[in-house]
């Protein structure tokens, strides 16, 4: 591969809708000026104002730091727990029903407790974000381990693999498509939890400070900046994560998806 897929196959169609919306936004707000609906120009100006002082980069840095700690922690813990439940029917029977019950508690409901337990620093937020990533990764990993095709296990058996070898050489790789989906799902989920955790706890410093500032000073263009940044960063992270899942040894994951969609089109 000389250049990556996403550069060679530039797909413009996805950009049409955003551009149309941007145009409509510009026209509408300039024709009907309103404090409740700032123009794109004011939004860009607000961004410049806050980025020139460096404040915005500080907000982004703080939020990303919290997020990445929480997300990585949640993914690793979720994968380990899911792998354990997926490879032991005993553990599954003991813990899975409880996990299903536990995760029905809306995560933000834990905020008061977490603040009391972990103090006012970043820790309660990181824990909450980790919890957001934990459950999707856990359940997907578990399902992946449980759904390893019998046929693949039999290949292992035909070559006389031990239980541990089967786990490492058959079950683990075969479950990777599920783990991948788990992490991609939980990325979005955790990103949402990040904003909720920042709004719901005091002493901030993250991106939701922009939301607060905008509301307090009635400068909705700041809210616009925050929303666009949150969406844009989330999108880029999602894109990045999908790329991470397709490099080197993981190339087969995205290759299979491409082939399946190709087959889908022809039949």
């Amino acid at each position, binding site marked *: 591969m000389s250049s990556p897929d996403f550069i060679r196959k530039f797909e413009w169609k996805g950009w049409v809708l955003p551009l149309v919306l941007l145009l409509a936004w510009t026209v509408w707000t300039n024709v009907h000026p309103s404090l409740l609906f700032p123009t794109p120009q004011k939004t860009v100006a607000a961004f410049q104002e806050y980025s020139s002082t460096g404040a915005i980069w500080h907000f982004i840095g703080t939020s990303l730091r919290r997020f990445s700690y929480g997300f990585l922690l949640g993914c690793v813990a979720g994968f380990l727990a899911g792998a354990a439940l997926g490879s032991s029917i005993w553990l599954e029977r003991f813990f899975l029903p409880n996990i299903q019950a536990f995760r029905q508690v809306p995560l933000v409901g834990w905020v008061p407790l977490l603040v009391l337990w972990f103090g006012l620093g970043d820790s309660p937020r990181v824990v909450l974000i980790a919890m957001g990533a934990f459950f999707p990764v856990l359940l997907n990993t578990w399902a992946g381990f449980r759904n390893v095709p019998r*046929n*693949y296990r039999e*290949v292992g*058996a*035909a070559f*006389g693999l031990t239980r541990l070898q089967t786990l490492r050489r058959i079950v683990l790789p*075969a479950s*990777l498509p599920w783990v991948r989906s788990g992490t991609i799902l939980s990325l979005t989920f955790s990103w949402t939890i990040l904003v909720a955790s920042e709004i719901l706890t005091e002493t901030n410093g993250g991106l939701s400070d922009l939301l607060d500032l905008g509301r307090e000073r009635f400068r909705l263009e700041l809210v616009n900046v925050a929303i666009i940044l949150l969406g844009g960063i989330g999108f880029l992270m999602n894109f990045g994560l999908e790329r991470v899942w397709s490099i080197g040894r993981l190339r*087969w994951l995205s290759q299979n998806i491409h082939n399946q969609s190709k087959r889908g089109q022809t039949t």
Partner: protein
Amino acid sequence: MTATAIQLTAAAGFDRTASRTGSDIPAESSAKELRTGSGLPEAVREPEWRVSIKGLTKIFQGEAGEVVALNDIDLDIKVGEFVSLLGASGCGKTTLLRIIGGLERSFRGEALLDGARIAGPGRDRGFVFQDHRLLPWLTVEENVGFGLSHLKRKERSEIVGDHLDLVGLRSFARSYPSQLSGGMAQRASIARALATDPEILLLDEPLGALDALTRMHMQDELERIWKAKAGLTVVMVTHDVDEALYLSDRIVVLSPRPGTIRRIVDVPLARPRPRESYDFNRLKKILLEDFELSHKEIQPEFAI
């Protein structure tokens, strides 16, 4: 050999001298030597039967009670022999192959490999499934080397390279299975089974999923591979009479419910076998009669 085996050789006047080994020496060890052209000690150590099955019965516990998949099977397979298990679906041919492969472990009777009880799968047997079952997360070369993880990297890549050459897939070494055609995937699967240097190759309808032309081409490939691997015994499950006739030294015809050996047919035709020859079709007719497909006897009621 069993009493049901039919000796067509004399009756049909087949040319025995043009058999695979280019010789009419009947002893198995001699045949092996001629094919390998290598030393004697190995040939002396070879047991008479690679596979020996006696009074084998396999019963599956189904929802509707017991299903007798195989009933009192006796079968001996010689070293270096190419044997086909031929029958309609449900005759237990795959079960029999899986028992030899060690994938089915509970059965009554005796199943021996080189004189020892078959207790489970092992590297001495290579198994090729009907669906190629290449692991999608491994490249073709990694799949072929799957059973060689105990070897050092250099040694492994040498063996893998040799086997990729054997099946003509060297240029696809770095490809993933999803990038291969059906025939190529099945060839890679055969290479994987052979890479551990098994004494016996077990093929479970290996060409069943391929189209007719690819299939005939792959039959030639199978024959070539079998010849290239000295002393290799092959047991192939198939429901294709032509395929069995084209490739086998002996054909074991199984009949269903319960799975029993109807008869064992020797195929002493010279290789490569012309599919349109008189002898080929004569044997084919005999085999088809077993499946009541040869249109030989026309029922008077229907002969209007």
